């Protein structure tokens, strides 16, 4: 028996130590640095209390990055979920070449976000404007990424293009768990397609809806690769996400401690949002 117990401890303790060393310890260190004025490379630094935190709330760059990130995360979450649910419904219907289309719609998920971003960067600057000109629209014939008011829409388009793949697969899996006889029963009762969706399909997909909303929102709040590939945070600072600000300020701007404080706030924001989402969404889940 003791031998059994020893084996179980041996299975977990190396992982525990490594996890502590490379995840928890850096996280604690990050919190510690948030209370100092370290720039990331000097030999010495001082403890400054809550000064960094106070300054963050007064920093316009930080405020802007939060506004952009929230705007972006909410837009992508809503669009990704609506579109992927529609596609999943389509792929679940009696269509031709079902497996082929499933393969096509999942394809973007296997591609590198960065490279997809580079490809779209070119499309936005050289391809879409050609169509815009043909339509005779001044607005559509410009590079949307070069416009500080509209660049964020371009990033949303790319994120949605790629993001719907995974959510579609999850919704499709969800649709396949719904028993067929429910639809047969509703057909006998003469329910319309619309009614069927809202009374059967949508409620029974609730747990998948929760997972997809939380995943998409978390992904949106952490956006980094797309921005690097599409705008680099510009024009100006209009598409600077929180993750990008922490990266550039922390590694290149000599703001190691300051951005650590920003990261701590960011962490709290993500935890609160995820918890609220779970609480709110799980309330409307129901079992068969």
């Amino acid at each position, binding site marked *: 028996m003791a031998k059994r117990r020893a084996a*179980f*401890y041996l299975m977990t303790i190396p992982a525990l130590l490594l996890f502590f060393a*490379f995840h928890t310890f850096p996280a604690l260190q990050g919190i510690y640095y948030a209370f100092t004025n370290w720039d990331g490379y000097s030999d010495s630094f001082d403890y400054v209390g809550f000064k960094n935190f106070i300054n963050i709330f007064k920093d316009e760059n930080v405020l802007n990055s939060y506004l952009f990130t929230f705007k972006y995360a909410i837009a992508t979450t809503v669009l990704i979920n609506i579109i992927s649910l529609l596609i999943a419904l389509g792929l679940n219907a009696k269509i031709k070449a079902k497996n082929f289309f499933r393969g096509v719609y999942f394809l973007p998920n296997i591609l590198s976000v960065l490279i997809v971003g580079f490809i779209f960067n070119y499309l936005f600057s050289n391809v879409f404007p050609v169509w815009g000109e043909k339509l005779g629209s001044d607005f559509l014939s410009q590079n949307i990424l070069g416009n500080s008011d509209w660049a964020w829409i371009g990033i949303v388009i790319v994120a949605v293009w790629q993001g719907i793949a995974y959510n579609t697969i999850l919704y499709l899996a969800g649709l396949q768990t719904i028993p067929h006889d429910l639809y047969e029963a509703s057909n006998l009762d003469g329910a319309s397609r619309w009614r069927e969706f809202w009374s059967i399909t949508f409620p029974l997909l609730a747990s998948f809806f929760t997972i997809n909303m939380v995943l998409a929102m978390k992904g949106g709040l*952490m956006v980094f690769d797309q921005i690097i590939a599409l705008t680099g945070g510009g024009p100006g600072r209009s598409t600077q996400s929180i993750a990008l600000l922490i990266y550039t300020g922390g590694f290149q701007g000599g703001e190691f401690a300051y951005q*650590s404080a920003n990261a701590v706030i960011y962490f709290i924001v993500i935890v609160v949002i995820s918890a609220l989402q779970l609480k709110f969404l799980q309330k409307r889940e129901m079992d068969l």
Partner: protein
Amino acid sequence: MIKKTTNWPVTVIIALCSLLILFPLYMTIAIALKNPEEMARSIFSLPTGLHFENFANAIKATNFFNALGNSATITVTAVVFILLTNSMVAYAIARNMNKRFFKTLYFYFISAMFIPFQIIMLPVVKVTTDLHMNNIPGLIILYIVYGLAFNVFVYVGYIRSIPYELEEAATVDGASTWGTFWRIIFPLLAPVNATIGILSCLSTWNDFMLPLILLGNQDSYTLPLVQYVFQGQFSTDFNLAFASYLLALSPMLIIYLFAQKWIIGGLTQGSIK
């Protein structure tokens, strides 16, 4: 009655929408095969000459095979170790959930799912540099360790649904805990292993941020990182750039082409509940 005939309107809509997915990929292939003169004539047309020299130049410019080797080494090693170690940790936790130590460990690991990488990003560079781990082996270790949060969650859920009697029988027959895990549990984990394997493979292969902040030596750059560096140097030659993108995307595209059914099946099977 449920209709058994093909739903043509939906088929047409699905087919039209799929063009939105395929168009950027068509453009990538077409631009990679053209030269600047052809591009000037029409961006959309099919390439006429098939300029494979774009690929040869891209391979040279980005040291493609070196980056491919690095990406492959990192992904294969990390995924193998993730499957072997993360499942083992989850097994010990799942079978000891009544003990405080393991239960705490479970919540400790999965709580990390909510910690954004940015909060550890700055210090982890310092820690890994101090330990001389800012290289490929260090990167692999980080992928294995960071996988724990999500993977333990998925594995534990699955292992708890495996009847305990199987293991009791093995114990009666004299199998050790290790023997039970490797010979009975691990093979039973096949569907989850497929899911975790595919997901870790995709995320490791395509990861950009960790290599960006961790890898100092240019010889150890991965495929996405090379594209990033390349971008700055050759931003005017689009044909060369797109040939390079296509090369970087092709290994996964080829694997997906052959294993598509299996990949999608693996993801849907294990990822639900």
